[in-house]
């Protein structure tokens, strides 16, 4: 009969009124974020507060958007000193390639997702500033990639 489908549609609409609510009252209520979710890049520190980063610049070369910038100098007593580790949050696409590439687990994809800001300059973050870099002799990760060397690094 013509119109039966329309009536059935009303039935489905009524049924849907009794389906449980899936929206939450943000920001009072928040949905859990899965472990793997990728949001802003954060630096990782050792327990004593020193950064894990060795200023090896692998992440800088890995980032497709060129949003990471590490400036380092050599300490007089040897070893590296990170002057600045700048992260352009506004241009980052949260792909996670830098974190996968870092052989020292010195950065991570955090779960910080409320990234809106009133001031454009907040989108340029200083992940590390004026600290001594970790010594690369400290055991790198098991499956770490060898740093691209020589010509390979040059045309990468």
């Amino acid at each position: 009969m013509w119109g039966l489908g329309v009536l059935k549609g009303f039935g489905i609409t009524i049924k849907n009124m009794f389906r449980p609510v899936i929206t939450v009252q943000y920001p009072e209520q928040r949905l859990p974020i899965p472990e793997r979710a990728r949001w802003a890049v954060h630096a990782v520190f050792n327990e004593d507060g020193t950064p894990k980063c060795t200023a090896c610049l692998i992440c800088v070369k890995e980032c497709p958007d060129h949003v990471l910038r590490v400036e380092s100098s050599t300490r007089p007593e040897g070893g590296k000193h990170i002057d600045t580790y700048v992260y352009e949050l506004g241009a980052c696409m949260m792909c996670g390639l830098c974190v996968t590439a870092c052989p020292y687990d010195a950065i991570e994809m955090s779960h910080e997702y409320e990234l809106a800001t009133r001031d454009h300059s907040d989108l340029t973050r200083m992940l590390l500033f004026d600290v001594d870099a970790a010594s690369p002799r400290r055991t790198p990760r098991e499956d770490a990639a060898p740093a691209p060397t020589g010509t390979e690094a040059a045309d990468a």
Partner: protein
Amino acid sequence: MSDGHSWHSDVALEEGRPAYLPRGLKRVPRGVDELATEHLVLNMGPQHPSTHGVLHVLIELDGEEVISAEASLGYLHRGIEKLAESRRYHQVATLLDRADYVSGLHTETAFALATEKLAGIEVPWRASWLRSLAMELNRYASHLVWLGTFGMDAGAMAPFLYIMRDREMILDILEEWCGSRMMFNYVRPGGVFADIPAGLDAKIRAWLRVADSYLDDNDALLGGNEIFQARIRGTGLIDAATALAFGMTGGCLRASGVDYDLRRDVPYCAYGELDFEVPLGVNGDNLDRYTVRVGEMRQCLRLIRQLVDGVPEGDFTAKVPKVFRPPAGESYAAVESPRGELGIHIVSDGGLTPYRMRLRSPAYFNLAIVDEALAGGLVADAIVTLGSLDIVLGEIDR
């Protein structure tokens, strides 16, 4: 006046093409010369809500009737193909996610398959299987978007809201799995980026238990509705010969009755092992495209059931050197994306980055048919027909 364009006298006019004719319009609107009833040239888009993105369609109207139509593209052009030439192979996936942003995993997989073909990488069986499972989930999510927006094009608002809620369940699964809801960056040359998280299969099964009844509801709400049927039956006719001539693929081609599905005809990933049917249409009207896609969604659920039950043991990725240089040469690989044959052609000169990457985007070919499909119909049907083609502008404009 000179015989050039009225604004740019150095631009020569085409023969028989008046200067007032908007760029991109093929012919002089009939009736203008005689100054009889003038035809109206309507700019639909690029900000029209029913064009699914930034599509601009020039429609020539005689009253309510469409005389001709032409798509004007490029509003979402980001130069993805050119950018890929400066990205190393594992970085290209981040671009391709943004090409077809409704089903990123298909584009990623096509690129990975082409790279593997080029470099002769053997992909572990588990990786192929995981790719297929993720792609089918993504296909279902993509078809849900289409179903909702197609209903909305015809004026049905409620189904869209229910469908988006159902899609959210898949996006939650994919976020837990790939780390992102739409910009997955999951499939890499050699395999996938990470294994399926423990416990996710239970979540997929829990979703599968309700997915059928939700789909039945949505189908009854849209396809079961006689008003909706009357709207979409017999409009937007595309016959099989025209569809083939325009290089259409995917659901749009199958709705015209051409039996062609890459998953079955040129199996890739795990599809050779799976049991599924390819729904076909007869006439190639909007109703056929609707039935074919909804049928495809049911097959999709069937595939996901098989895939989630049979995930094999093994590695999730092959060993690919970090500094990866495939040999010089070229390769082409295609996958059946929700919109049709999505192909990636890579030319390598042996360097770290592709020398050239070309994306064969199915929606581009499917959209080329607008003139044939819309002409002769009413302007209200034009919107429905455009919706039935399931276009994604990110992929068309790249």
